[in-house]
């Protein structure tokens, strides 16, 4: 039995009806990770023992019929910025390289409560700052579809692991595209739910008003099941909305007949990689054949200002949220002659180059004078972007647009042309600025086997409708395959 090929729902079904055990499923996945992760470096910490204990617990419950949990025995991985009790949580930074939290993030807790088994932590750009997963202290993750390319970022490890068949569900965090862009680069399905849909408690913050937890899967059925488990109010996070969530699994089956769906136009398609334009056209065709009406829409304010606005908001907040790493209570500590010197040395040594750069820019943005000229206008533009979308969603049910302007980058581009990488967030960061749900959906592969994903966006808290749209397209396009990571042979870790 090739367990790694199963979907999360298939695994859970088999565990629940006694067809196989959670322990069997777990060891098959652990074995695959150990055999092949050396090729792509997607997992930074494996927690075999605790995973085995959790799987055995599920099997015990299953034996006396108590394992009727939606994700019973489903192995999963989480990005290394999710707090995990007893398992080191490093944010792939020297700053937190030996930090072990004593609590689980709400998202992790909810997954475990649903019967899912936590196997370990995935690689990421340091403190989630990056789009290539190359700035990790554990070294870069490689794209499982093409080892010469990056997996995207910052949740590159999670996306690569799902694509490689290491787990059917992995969690990432998405501040400006960090779940969806790597999902696009690795050819899997990734979602950033509406802001306030899933608790942020226990996610090491990058930017409070943008961060959101998102699941990465190989099909929308698993995605909806994960959403159903993850979404919900949390007394530990007052920005997490209290509204009563629908059943995402049921809602995802609703179809899109009669729905009005906009395709974004009016942006520079010439600078886009051609297969990605085709992917959008193909998605529109699928929607039409599923009974939806397709119209064109332009978002001039958004397309002109989103990236600049995003970096103002994100970096300003990052400089604030990362100020707590002073090396005193946790994290990297350096000695100094006085408090100020200790702070400076600890932070300088603990943070990598990109993180330091972003903290400096963010600090500058919030400094008097710059604050009024950069940050304040950015918040106004942010509101205008949200308004532009609110207007659009009065007329249509969803929007289809690119998630990334480019196919997966070659390794090392971030050093050569960092601005191009920043501009790559143009489409993905919009959903974060406006708090909207967004899905990065795979609709096929290029001749060279590179994935082509599109972005689907919906109104705030229209997550269920968006899942229905994604499922309708997926029904026509098919689910992405598992990357042939074996082709490079075993590379045991």
């Amino acid at each position, binding site marked *: 039995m090739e367990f790694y090929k199963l979907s999360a729902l298939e695994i859970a079904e088999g565990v629940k009806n006694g067809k196989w055990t959670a322990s069997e499923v777990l060891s098959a996945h652990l074995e695959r990770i150990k055999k092949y992760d050396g090729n792509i470096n997607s997992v930074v910490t494996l927690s075999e023992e605790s995973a085995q204990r959790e799987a055995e617990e599920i099997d015990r419950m299953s034996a006396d019929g108590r394992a009727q949990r939606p994700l019973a025995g489903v192995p999963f991985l989480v990005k290394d910025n*999710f*707090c995990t009790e007893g398992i080191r*949580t490093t*944010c792939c930074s020297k700053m*937190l390289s030996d*930090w072990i*939290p*004593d*609590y689980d*993030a709400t998202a992790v807790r909810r997954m475990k409560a649903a019967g899912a088994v936590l196997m370990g932590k995935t690689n990421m750009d340091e403190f989630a700052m990056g789009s290539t997963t190359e700035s990790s202290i554990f070294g870069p993750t490689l794209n499982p579809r093409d080892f010469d390319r990056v997996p995207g970022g910052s949740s590159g490890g999670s996306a690569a692991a799902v694509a490689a068949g290491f787990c059917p569900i992995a969690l990432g965090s998405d501040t400006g595209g960090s779940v969806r862009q790597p999902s696009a680069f690795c050819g899997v399905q990734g979602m950033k739910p509406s802001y306030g849909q899933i608790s*942020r*408690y*226990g*996610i*090491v*913050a990058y*930017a*409070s*008003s943008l961060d959101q937890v998102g699941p990465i899967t190989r099909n929308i059925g698993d995605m909806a099941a994960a959403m159903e488990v993850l979404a919900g109010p949390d*007394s*530990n*996070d*007052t*920005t997490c909305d209290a509204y009563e969530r629908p059943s995402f699994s049921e809602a995802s089956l609703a179809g899109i007949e009669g729905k009005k769906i906009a395709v974004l136009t009016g942006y520079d398609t010439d600078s886009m990689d051609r297969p990605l334009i085709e992917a959008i056209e193909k998605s529109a065709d699928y929607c039409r054949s599923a009974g939806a009406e397709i119209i064109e829409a332009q978002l001039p304010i958004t397309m002109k200002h989103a990236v600049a606005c995003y970096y103002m908001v994100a970096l*300003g*907040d990052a*400089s*604030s949220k990362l*100020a*707590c790493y*002073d090396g*005193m*209570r*946790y994290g990297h500590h350096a000695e100094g002659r006085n*408090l*100020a010197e200790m*702070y400076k040395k600890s932070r300088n040594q603990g943070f990598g180059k990109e993180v330091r750069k972003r903290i400096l820019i963010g*600090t500058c943005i*919030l*400094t*008097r004078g710059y*604050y009024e000229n950069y*940050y304040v206008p950015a918040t106004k533009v942010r509101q205008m972007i949200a308004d532009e979308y609110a207007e659009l969603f009065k007329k249509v049910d969803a929007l289809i647009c690119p998630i990334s302007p480019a196919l997966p980058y070659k390794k090392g581009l971030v050093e050569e042309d960092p601005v191009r990488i920043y501009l790559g967030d143009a489409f993905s960061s919009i959903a974060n600025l406006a708090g909207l749900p967004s899905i990065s959906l795979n609709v096929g592969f290029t001749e060279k086997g590179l994935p082509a994903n599109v972005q689907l966006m919906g109104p705030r808290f229209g997550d269920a409708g968006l899942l229905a749209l994604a499922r309708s397209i997926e029904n026509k396009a098919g689910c992405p395959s598992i990357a042939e990571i074996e082709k490079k042979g075993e590379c045991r870790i």
Partner: protein
Amino acid sequence: MKREPVIGLEIHLQLKTKTKLFCGCSSDYIGAIPNTNVCPVCLAVPGTLPILNDHAVELAVKTGLGLHCSICDNTRFHRKHYFYADLPKAYQITQYEHPIAVKGYVDIFAGGKEKRVRVHHLHLEEDAGKLVHPTSDGRLTGASYSLVDYNRGGMPLSEIVSEPDMNSAEEAIAYITQIRQLARYLDVSDGEMESGSLRVDVNVSLTRPDGSLGTRVEIKNINSLTSIERALEYEIARQNKVLDEGGHLAQETRLWDDVAGVTRSMRSKEGDRDYRYYVEMDLAPISAGPEYVRKIRESLPEMPWDKRERFISEYSLSPEESLHLTEQRETADYFEACVSEGAPPAKCANWMRMEVQRMLHDYGIGINNFPVPSAELGKLIIKVEKRELSNTQAKDVLAVMAEKKTSLEDAVRICGVSGGKITGTALEEAVMKIFDSEPEAVKTIREGNDKKGAKVKFLQGLVMRETRGSADPAEVASLVNSMLH
């Protein structure tokens, strides 16, 4: 032209909530072992988020209403950034652009006249931790290491910022006293400077010859009302001296040195520190809508100044008496409970101001801990009114009640003022009462027509009855005789 001092005050009130402002940690930190009232949230462990304590908001709104402020709906918190060991997040969550209460006032009485001091705003914020610098001379710098206690970190504070409306130390003291009284009336804060639940930062400047405001100096580290008076007087004199000598004042923060009795420059504000204030996105905006505010307004107790007026009109007390009785809500409650027993208000006021006050002072306790229940004091005063006890006896009885924590009845017995021991003036009063009620008998005796002494015996009997047998018959006989002639 004489330079006039201009004073503005920032008062931090520690709010009486059970838990901290943004986490579930106990707020009972006085005397707790360092770093025991802490949790991942108030230690800024990565991944944690603040959760606003609703009770703190309620107390802030109460205080705001007491200060005649407008309460703002949809206010937000900001982050105030600075790196220091007492601040785990490296930012303090505080209210900056959108404080919860704005534009109020406090009426004070100082220098023989009433004055209105405007309140600019009241905002909520979290307290920082406490640094301990273990140097032998207690200096704040120069220690080789420092210790930090985060028990206080995250405690809820409401900061009340006045307009620069005060012109003397006396006015400043009156303002602080008034706010402290309000805080205690509303039960929002202990308002104790000694324990740090009320802290005052002083801003003082001198007017320029053209009447405009001069350079402002902030004074910190003042820990008692007396020190505030001394610090202000010192600082006003210092500023006058600098200007008299043709010097310039720096806009700066100065620390009050209570031992030396001087202020010392702490840091210059010339560069004016940039705290990079920025909206706290981890907390949703606070909603304090009209309905919420109405409910709190309805729950407010009578304000001290209203009570003061009512005591004057309802109980015909003098303004001074009323001021004394309403200084603390508990004293006023005690007084009103005495009165409700049927004791005359003027007498109650007098007893409270003289006897009770003296005993509280001697015992070193507050009215809350006064061992004599208000009802018992009321009954005691009634006994005096009925001349069952003389004033002197009643004072003795009260002393016994307080000391031995006994009931009135037992105290009377212990004092021996019952069972033949109504004597002296109290007995004279009883005799006079009987004489007044039997004018015929008295007349007969005085005119020498009571040959057999029957009328005298009759009057003696009435006195014995009046004193319920608590008087010595021999004393009654001699007193009746002497008073008849």
